[in-house]
Protein backbone atom coordinates (compact mmCIF):
# COMPACT_ATOMS: atom_id res chain seq x y z
CA UNK A 1 0.00 0.00 0.00
CA UNK A 2 1.15 3.52 -0.64
CA UNK A 3 0.39 6.65 1.30
CA UNK A 4 0.75 10.32 0.38
CA UNK A 5 3.66 12.23 1.92
CA UNK A 6 5.01 15.74 1.60
CA UNK A 7 8.50 16.76 2.64
CA UNK A 8 10.17 20.11 2.08
CA UNK A 9 13.58 19.36 0.62
CA UNK A 10 16.03 22.23 0.23
CA UNK A 11 13.13 24.66 0.51
CA UNK A 12 11.00 22.96 -2.16
CA UNK A 13 7.86 20.96 -1.37
CA UNK A 14 8.23 17.37 -2.59
CA UNK A 15 5.07 15.28 -2.59
CA UNK A 16 4.75 11.62 -3.45
CA UNK A 17 2.90 8.37 -2.85
CA UNK A 18 5.23 5.95 -1.14
CA UNK A 19 5.26 2.55 0.50
CA UNK A 20 5.01 2.93 4.26
CA UNK A 21 8.25 1.02 4.66
CA UNK A 22 10.23 3.30 2.34
CA UNK A 23 13.33 4.85 3.91
CA UNK A 24 13.84 8.60 3.70
CA UNK A 25 17.15 8.18 1.87
CA UNK A 26 15.32 6.46 -1.00
CA UNK A 27 12.68 9.19 -1.15
CA UNK A 28 15.46 11.76 -1.42
CA UNK A 29 17.35 9.85 -4.11
CA UNK A 30 14.53 8.27 -6.12
CA UNK A 31 11.47 10.46 -5.67
CA UNK A 32 13.21 13.83 -5.36
CA UNK A 33 16.06 12.81 -7.67
CA UNK A 34 18.75 14.21 -5.37
CA UNK A 35 21.52 11.65 -5.55
CA UNK A 36 24.15 13.53 -3.53
CA UNK A 37 22.96 11.68 -0.45
CA UNK A 38 24.47 8.18 -0.57
CA UNK A 39 23.64 4.77 0.84
CA UNK A 40 26.82 3.22 2.22
CA UNK A 41 26.31 0.68 4.96
CA UNK A 42 22.54 0.68 5.27
CA UNK A 43 23.09 -0.33 8.93
CA UNK A 44 23.13 3.18 10.48
CA UNK A 45 26.88 3.30 10.99
CA UNK A 46 28.67 4.96 8.06
CA UNK A 47 26.97 8.35 7.85
CA UNK A 48 27.05 8.70 4.03
CA UNK A 49 23.28 9.24 4.16
CA UNK A 50 23.49 12.16 6.63
CA UNK A 51 21.03 14.99 5.98
CA UNK A 52 19.64 17.81 8.09
CA UNK A 53 16.15 16.80 9.31
CA UNK A 54 14.26 19.67 10.94
CA UNK A 55 17.55 21.38 11.58
CA UNK A 56 19.65 18.55 13.03
CA UNK A 57 21.75 15.89 11.36
CA UNK A 58 20.13 12.52 10.89
CA UNK A 59 20.95 9.30 9.08
CA UNK A 60 18.34 9.13 6.33
CA UNK A 61 18.71 5.34 6.05
CA UNK A 62 17.29 5.05 9.56
CA UNK A 63 14.18 7.21 9.15
CA UNK A 64 10.99 6.18 7.36
CA UNK A 65 9.71 8.58 4.70
CA UNK A 66 6.30 8.56 6.42
CA UNK A 67 8.00 9.55 9.70
CA UNK A 68 9.49 12.60 7.98
CA UNK A 69 6.29 13.66 6.23
CA UNK A 70 5.64 17.29 7.15
CA UNK A 71 9.31 17.88 8.00
CA UNK A 72 12.04 19.92 6.33
CA UNK A 73 15.16 18.29 4.97
CA UNK A 74 18.39 19.86 3.75
CA UNK A 75 20.68 17.72 1.63
CA UNK A 76 24.18 18.35 0.30
CA UNK A 77 22.57 19.92 -2.79
CA UNK A 78 20.94 22.52 -0.55
CA UNK A 79 23.91 23.91 1.36
CA UNK A 80 25.27 26.21 -1.32
CA UNK A 81 23.49 28.72 -3.53
CA UNK A 82 24.26 26.66 -6.62
CA UNK A 83 26.87 29.12 -7.89
CA UNK A 84 29.55 29.42 -5.22
CA UNK A 85 30.62 26.42 -3.20
CA UNK A 86 29.84 26.34 0.52
CA UNK A 87 33.03 27.07 2.57
CA UNK A 88 33.07 23.41 3.66
CA UNK A 89 32.93 22.20 0.05
CA UNK A 90 35.67 24.67 -0.87
CA UNK A 91 37.82 23.52 2.06
CA UNK A 92 37.40 19.80 1.24
CA UNK A 93 38.55 20.61 -2.30
CA UNK A 94 41.52 22.75 -1.20
CA UNK A 95 42.69 20.25 1.42
CA UNK A 96 42.27 17.13 -0.69
CA UNK A 97 39.71 16.00 1.91
CA UNK A 98 38.36 13.31 -0.38
CA UNK A 99 39.55 10.54 -2.63
CA UNK A 100 36.67 8.51 -4.03
CA UNK A 101 34.23 11.08 -2.64
CA UNK A 102 31.56 8.64 -1.51
CA UNK A 103 31.67 9.70 2.13
CA UNK A 104 32.00 13.41 1.34
CA UNK A 105 28.35 14.54 1.26
CA UNK A 106 27.74 12.92 4.65
CA UNK A 107 31.00 14.28 6.05
CA UNK A 108 30.08 17.79 4.97
CA UNK A 109 26.56 17.56 6.39
CA UNK A 110 27.90 16.28 9.73
CA UNK A 111 30.68 18.89 9.76
CA UNK A 112 28.14 21.61 9.06
CA UNK A 113 26.25 20.73 12.24
CA UNK A 114 29.50 20.46 14.17
CA UNK A 115 30.53 23.99 13.13
CA UNK A 116 27.10 25.34 13.95
CA UNK A 117 27.37 24.02 17.51
CA UNK A 118 31.08 24.74 17.87
CA UNK A 119 32.39 27.38 15.42
CA UNK A 120 36.07 26.85 16.27
CA UNK A 121 36.62 23.22 17.18
CA UNK A 122 39.99 21.63 17.99
CA UNK A 123 41.18 18.76 15.80
CA UNK A 124 40.13 16.40 18.57
CA UNK A 125 36.65 17.92 18.68
CA UNK A 126 36.37 17.60 14.90
CA UNK A 127 37.21 13.91 15.11
CA UNK A 128 34.63 13.48 17.87
CA UNK A 129 31.97 15.35 15.86
CA UNK A 130 32.56 13.15 12.82
CA UNK A 131 32.44 9.91 14.82
CA UNK A 132 29.36 8.74 12.95
CA UNK A 133 30.95 9.12 9.52
CA UNK A 134 33.26 6.52 8.05
CA UNK A 135 35.80 7.16 5.30
CA UNK A 136 37.50 4.18 3.70
CA UNK A 137 39.98 6.21 1.62
CA UNK A 138 41.58 9.23 3.19
CA UNK A 139 42.66 8.20 6.68
CA UNK A 140 40.75 11.26 7.93
CA UNK A 141 43.76 13.63 8.30
CA UNK A 142 42.78 15.83 5.36
CA UNK A 143 39.12 15.72 6.33
CA UNK A 144 40.02 17.13 9.74
CA UNK A 145 42.21 19.77 8.08
CA UNK A 146 39.38 20.69 5.72
CA UNK A 147 36.93 21.21 8.57
CA UNK A 148 39.55 23.26 10.46
CA UNK A 149 40.04 25.40 7.36
CA UNK A 150 36.32 25.83 6.80
CA UNK A 151 35.91 26.91 10.43
CA UNK A 152 38.42 29.71 9.81
CA UNK A 153 36.77 30.69 6.53
CA UNK A 154 33.39 30.79 8.22
CA UNK A 155 34.76 33.20 10.80
CA UNK A 156 35.07 30.85 13.74
CA UNK A 157 38.51 32.18 14.66
Amino acid sequence: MTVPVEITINGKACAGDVEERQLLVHFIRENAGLTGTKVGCDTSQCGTCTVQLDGVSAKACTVLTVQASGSSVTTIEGISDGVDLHPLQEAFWNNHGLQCGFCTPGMIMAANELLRNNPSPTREEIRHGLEGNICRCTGYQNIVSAVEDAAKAMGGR
Partner: protein
Amino acid sequence: MFPAQITYHRAGSVAEAVQLLSSNEGAKLLAGGHSLLPLMKLRLAAPAVLVDIGRIEALKGVSASGGGITIGALTTHAEIASSDLVKQHAPVLAEAAALVGDPAVRNRGTIGGSVSHADPASDQPTVLTALGATFNVTGQGGDRSIAAGDFATGLLENALEENEVLTSISVPSVPSGAGSAYVKFPHPASRYAVVGAAAVVAVSGGTCSSASVVVGGVETTPARASSVEAALAGSDLGDAALDAAAAAVGGDLNGDPMGDVFASAEYRRAMAAVYVRRALGAAASRAG
Protein backbone atom coordinates in the same frame (compact mmCIF):
# COMPACT_ATOMS: atom_id res chain seq x y z
CA MET B 1 17.81 -3.09 2.75
CA PHE B 2 14.14 -2.46 3.47
CA PRO B 3 11.96 -3.36 6.39
CA ALA B 4 9.14 -5.81 5.61
CA GLN B 5 5.75 -4.32 4.69
CA ILE B 6 4.15 -2.35 7.47
CA THR B 7 1.09 -0.31 8.20
CA TYR B 8 2.05 3.02 9.72
CA HIS B 9 0.01 5.13 12.14
CA ARG B 10 1.07 8.44 13.59
CA ALA B 11 -0.38 8.86 17.09
CA GLY B 12 -1.39 12.37 18.11
CA SER B 13 -1.57 11.62 21.82
CA VAL B 14 -0.62 8.97 24.36
CA ALA B 15 -4.28 7.92 24.61
CA GLU B 16 -4.39 7.41 20.85
CA ALA B 17 -1.16 5.40 20.96
CA VAL B 18 -2.59 3.14 23.67
CA GLN B 19 -5.77 2.69 21.64
CA LEU B 20 -3.79 1.87 18.46
CA LEU B 21 -1.65 -0.66 20.35
CA SER B 22 -4.75 -2.29 21.81
CA SER B 23 -6.60 -2.57 18.53
CA ASN B 24 -3.69 -3.84 16.40
CA GLU B 25 -2.27 -7.20 17.42
CA GLY B 26 1.54 -7.22 17.29
CA ALA B 27 1.79 -3.45 16.81
CA LYS B 28 4.97 -1.78 17.98
CA LEU B 29 5.72 1.76 19.06
CA LEU B 30 8.18 3.78 16.99
CA ALA B 31 10.06 6.58 18.77
CA GLY B 32 13.41 7.64 17.25
CA GLY B 33 13.56 4.38 15.32
CA HIS B 34 17.30 3.99 15.86
CA SER B 35 17.00 0.59 17.48
CA LEU B 36 13.79 -0.68 15.91
CA LEU B 37 14.39 0.23 12.24
CA PRO B 38 17.85 -1.43 12.10
CA LEU B 39 16.28 -4.61 13.56
CA MET B 40 13.45 -4.43 11.01
CA LYS B 41 15.87 -4.02 8.12
CA LEU B 42 17.65 -7.18 9.27
CA ARG B 43 14.25 -8.93 9.69
CA LEU B 44 15.09 -9.53 13.34
CA ALA B 45 11.82 -7.72 14.02
CA ALA B 46 8.84 -7.61 11.67
CA PRO B 47 5.92 -5.85 13.32
CA ALA B 48 2.94 -5.56 10.94
CA VAL B 49 1.91 -2.23 12.42
CA LEU B 50 3.99 0.69 13.64
CA VAL B 51 2.54 3.33 15.94
CA ASP B 52 4.73 6.43 15.64
CA ILE B 53 4.77 8.44 18.87
CA GLY B 54 7.61 10.66 17.65
CA ARG B 55 5.52 13.83 17.34
CA ILE B 56 3.73 13.75 20.70
CA GLU B 57 4.99 17.00 22.24
CA ALA B 58 3.73 16.04 25.73
CA LEU B 59 6.36 13.28 25.82
CA LYS B 60 9.29 15.66 25.20
CA GLY B 61 11.51 17.64 27.52
CA VAL B 62 12.93 17.80 31.03
CA SER B 63 11.22 19.47 33.98
CA ALA B 64 12.01 19.91 37.67
CA SER B 65 9.75 17.95 39.99
CA GLY B 66 9.82 17.56 43.79
CA GLY B 67 13.29 16.34 44.70
CA GLY B 68 14.43 15.64 41.19
CA ILE B 69 13.60 15.85 37.50
CA THR B 70 11.11 14.25 35.16
CA ILE B 71 12.30 13.38 31.67
CA GLY B 72 9.77 12.80 28.90
CA ALA B 73 10.19 9.44 27.16
CA LEU B 74 10.80 11.14 23.79
CA THR B 75 13.62 13.36 25.03
CA THR B 76 16.65 12.70 22.83
CA HIS B 77 20.14 11.80 23.97
CA ALA B 78 21.35 15.13 22.52
CA GLU B 79 18.79 17.08 24.58
CA ILE B 80 19.74 15.21 27.75
CA ALA B 81 23.47 15.73 27.14
CA SER B 82 22.94 19.50 26.92
CA SER B 83 20.15 20.00 29.48
CA ASP B 84 21.06 22.34 32.35
CA LEU B 85 18.43 20.71 34.57
CA VAL B 86 19.92 17.27 33.98
CA LYS B 87 23.46 18.58 34.61
CA GLN B 88 22.30 20.16 37.84
CA HIS B 89 20.27 17.24 39.27
CA ALA B 90 21.74 14.12 37.69
CA PRO B 91 24.98 15.05 35.90
CA VAL B 92 25.84 11.39 35.30
CA LEU B 93 22.86 11.08 32.93
CA ALA B 94 24.20 13.93 30.79
CA GLU B 95 27.67 12.38 30.94
CA ALA B 96 26.32 9.06 29.65
CA ALA B 97 24.04 10.63 27.02
CA ALA B 98 27.05 12.36 25.45
CA LEU B 99 28.72 8.95 25.03
CA VAL B 100 25.86 7.33 23.09
CA GLY B 101 26.74 6.41 19.50
CA ASP B 102 27.49 9.50 17.43
CA PRO B 103 25.92 12.96 16.99
CA ALA B 104 23.27 11.85 14.46
CA VAL B 105 22.25 8.90 16.65
CA ARG B 106 22.00 11.24 19.65
CA ASN B 107 19.76 13.60 17.64
CA ARG B 108 17.19 10.87 16.90
CA GLY B 109 17.52 8.29 19.69
CA THR B 110 15.30 8.80 22.74
CA ILE B 111 15.74 7.85 26.38
CA GLY B 112 12.36 6.07 26.36
CA GLY B 113 13.33 4.01 23.31
CA SER B 114 16.69 3.24 24.82
CA VAL B 115 15.29 1.76 28.04
CA SER B 116 12.30 0.06 26.33
CA HIS B 117 14.59 -1.64 23.84
CA ALA B 118 16.29 -3.25 26.87
CA ASP B 119 19.59 -3.87 25.14
CA PRO B 120 22.16 -4.63 27.86
CA ALA B 121 24.79 -2.78 25.82
CA SER B 122 22.84 0.49 26.13
CA ASP B 123 24.10 3.17 28.46
CA GLN B 124 21.10 4.85 30.08
CA PRO B 125 19.48 1.71 31.59
CA THR B 126 22.65 1.18 33.65
CA VAL B 127 22.77 4.81 34.79
CA LEU B 128 19.03 5.04 35.57
CA THR B 129 19.24 1.87 37.68
CA ALA B 130 22.15 3.33 39.66
CA LEU B 131 20.18 6.57 40.19
CA GLY B 132 17.11 4.70 41.46
CA ALA B 133 14.87 6.18 38.76
CA THR B 134 11.19 5.33 38.31
CA PHE B 135 9.54 4.67 34.94
CA ASN B 136 6.01 6.03 34.52
CA VAL B 137 3.77 4.14 32.09
CA THR B 138 0.24 4.47 30.77
CA GLY B 139 -1.87 1.69 29.32
CA GLN B 140 -5.40 0.46 28.93
CA GLY B 141 -5.45 -0.39 32.62
CA GLY B 142 -4.40 3.13 33.65
CA ASP B 143 -1.11 4.52 34.95
CA ARG B 144 1.56 2.74 36.96
CA SER B 145 5.20 3.12 37.90
CA ILE B 146 8.01 0.61 37.59
CA ALA B 147 11.39 0.84 39.37
CA ALA B 148 14.29 1.16 36.90
CA GLY B 149 15.86 -2.01 38.30
CA ASP B 150 12.70 -4.03 37.58
CA PHE B 151 12.06 -2.68 34.08
CA ALA B 152 14.34 -4.84 31.94
CA THR B 153 13.31 -8.46 32.38
CA GLY B 154 15.74 -10.12 29.97
CA LEU B 155 17.63 -9.61 26.73
CA LEU B 156 15.50 -7.10 24.73
CA GLU B 157 12.55 -7.76 27.06
CA ASN B 158 10.83 -5.30 29.36
CA ALA B 159 8.06 -5.27 31.96
CA LEU B 160 5.54 -3.36 29.79
CA GLU B 161 2.20 -4.89 28.81
CA GLU B 162 1.52 -4.94 25.04
CA ASN B 163 -0.67 -1.84 25.22
CA GLU B 164 1.49 0.22 27.57
CA VAL B 165 3.51 3.31 26.69
CA LEU B 166 6.44 4.55 28.76
CA THR B 167 5.62 8.24 29.17
CA SER B 168 8.32 9.64 31.45
CA ILE B 169 11.16 8.83 33.80
CA SER B 170 11.42 10.34 37.28
CA VAL B 171 14.98 10.77 38.45
CA PRO B 172 15.77 11.72 42.05
CA SER B 173 18.49 14.35 42.41
CA VAL B 174 21.94 13.09 43.26
CA PRO B 175 22.24 14.25 46.90
CA SER B 176 24.48 17.25 47.48
CA GLY B 177 27.89 16.03 48.55
CA ALA B 178 27.57 12.85 46.52
CA GLY B 179 29.62 12.24 43.39
CA SER B 180 28.46 10.32 40.33
CA ALA B 181 30.14 8.96 37.21
CA TYR B 182 29.58 6.71 34.21
CA VAL B 183 32.41 5.18 32.22
CA LYS B 184 32.22 2.74 29.36
CA PHE B 185 34.31 0.52 27.17
CA PRO B 186 32.80 1.47 23.81
CA HIS B 187 32.57 -1.11 21.05
CA PRO B 188 34.99 0.24 18.45
CA ALA B 189 32.45 0.12 15.60
CA SER B 190 29.06 0.88 17.15
CA ARG B 191 30.19 2.57 20.39
CA TYR B 192 27.59 0.57 22.34
CA ALA B 193 28.90 -0.38 25.79
CA VAL B 194 30.84 -3.64 25.83
CA VAL B 195 31.01 -2.86 29.54
CA GLY B 196 29.54 0.21 31.25
CA ALA B 197 29.76 1.15 34.92
CA ALA B 198 27.72 3.74 36.80
CA ALA B 199 28.52 4.83 40.35
CA VAL B 200 26.98 7.25 42.83
CA VAL B 201 28.89 7.64 46.11
CA ALA B 202 27.85 9.80 49.04
CA VAL B 203 30.34 11.02 51.62
CA SER B 204 29.76 12.21 55.11
CA GLY B 205 32.45 13.06 57.64
CA GLY B 206 35.20 11.72 55.39
CA THR B 207 33.73 8.25 54.94
CA CYS B 208 31.37 6.76 52.42
CA SER B 209 27.82 6.88 53.75
CA SER B 210 26.18 5.11 50.81
CA ALA B 211 27.00 3.88 47.33
CA SER B 212 25.06 2.73 44.31
CA VAL B 213 26.99 0.83 41.65
CA VAL B 214 25.55 -0.83 38.53
CA VAL B 215 27.26 -2.66 35.67
CA GLY B 216 25.89 -2.94 32.11
CA GLY B 217 26.94 -5.05 29.15
CA VAL B 218 27.99 -8.11 31.11
CA GLU B 219 24.66 -9.74 31.94
CA THR B 220 21.38 -9.62 30.02
CA THR B 221 20.08 -6.81 32.26
CA PRO B 222 21.89 -4.11 34.28
CA ALA B 223 23.52 -5.79 37.29
CA ARG B 224 23.59 -4.14 40.71
CA ALA B 225 27.01 -4.57 42.29
CA SER B 226 25.90 -5.16 45.88
CA SER B 227 29.27 -6.55 47.02
CA VAL B 228 31.01 -3.41 45.72
CA GLU B 229 28.46 -1.20 47.47
CA ALA B 230 28.92 -3.11 50.75
CA ALA B 231 32.71 -2.84 50.52
CA LEU B 232 32.50 0.92 49.97
CA ALA B 233 30.14 1.70 52.84
CA GLY B 234 32.09 3.13 55.76
CA SER B 235 35.37 3.17 53.84
CA ASP B 236 37.55 6.27 53.41
CA LEU B 237 37.26 6.08 49.59
CA GLY B 238 41.06 6.07 49.32
CA ASP B 239 42.80 4.22 46.50
CA ALA B 240 43.17 1.01 48.50
CA ALA B 241 39.50 1.03 49.48
CA LEU B 242 38.41 1.63 45.86
CA ASP B 243 40.73 -1.11 44.56
CA ALA B 244 39.31 -3.60 47.04
CA ALA B 245 35.71 -2.60 46.38
CA ALA B 246 36.06 -2.82 42.58
CA ALA B 247 37.69 -6.24 42.84
CA ALA B 248 34.57 -7.48 44.64
CA VAL B 249 32.43 -7.04 41.50
CA GLY B 250 33.18 -10.60 40.37
CA GLY B 251 30.90 -11.83 43.17
CA ASP B 252 28.03 -9.78 41.77
CA LEU B 253 28.16 -11.05 38.19
CA ASN B 254 26.79 -14.57 38.48
CA GLY B 255 23.67 -14.19 36.34
CA ASP B 256 23.46 -14.86 32.61
CA PRO B 257 26.87 -13.80 31.34
CA MET B 258 27.03 -12.69 27.73
CA GLY B 259 29.86 -13.25 25.32
CA ASP B 260 30.31 -12.72 21.62
CA VAL B 261 32.98 -12.81 18.97
CA PHE B 262 34.27 -9.41 20.10
CA ALA B 263 34.35 -9.93 23.86
CA SER B 264 33.97 -13.24 25.71
CA ALA B 265 32.01 -13.47 28.95
CA GLU B 266 35.28 -13.95 30.84
CA TYR B 267 36.79 -10.82 29.26
CA ARG B 268 33.68 -8.75 30.00
CA ARG B 269 33.86 -9.86 33.65
CA ALA B 270 37.52 -8.89 33.85
CA MET B 271 36.77 -5.53 32.25
CA ALA B 272 33.87 -4.97 34.66
CA ALA B 273 36.36 -4.74 37.54
CA VAL B 274 38.48 -2.27 35.56
CA TYR B 275 35.58 -0.02 34.59
CA VAL B 276 33.95 -0.17 38.02
CA ARG B 277 37.30 0.98 39.47
CA ARG B 278 37.39 3.91 37.03
CA ALA B 279 33.79 4.86 37.78
CA LEU B 280 34.47 4.73 41.53
CA GLY B 281 37.58 6.86 41.16
CA ALA B 282 35.72 9.50 39.15
CA ALA B 283 32.64 9.49 41.41
CA ALA B 284 34.74 9.69 44.61
CA SER B 285 36.76 12.60 43.21
CA ARG B 286 33.53 14.50 42.53
CA ALA B 287 32.03 13.78 45.98
CA GLY B 288 32.27 16.02 49.02
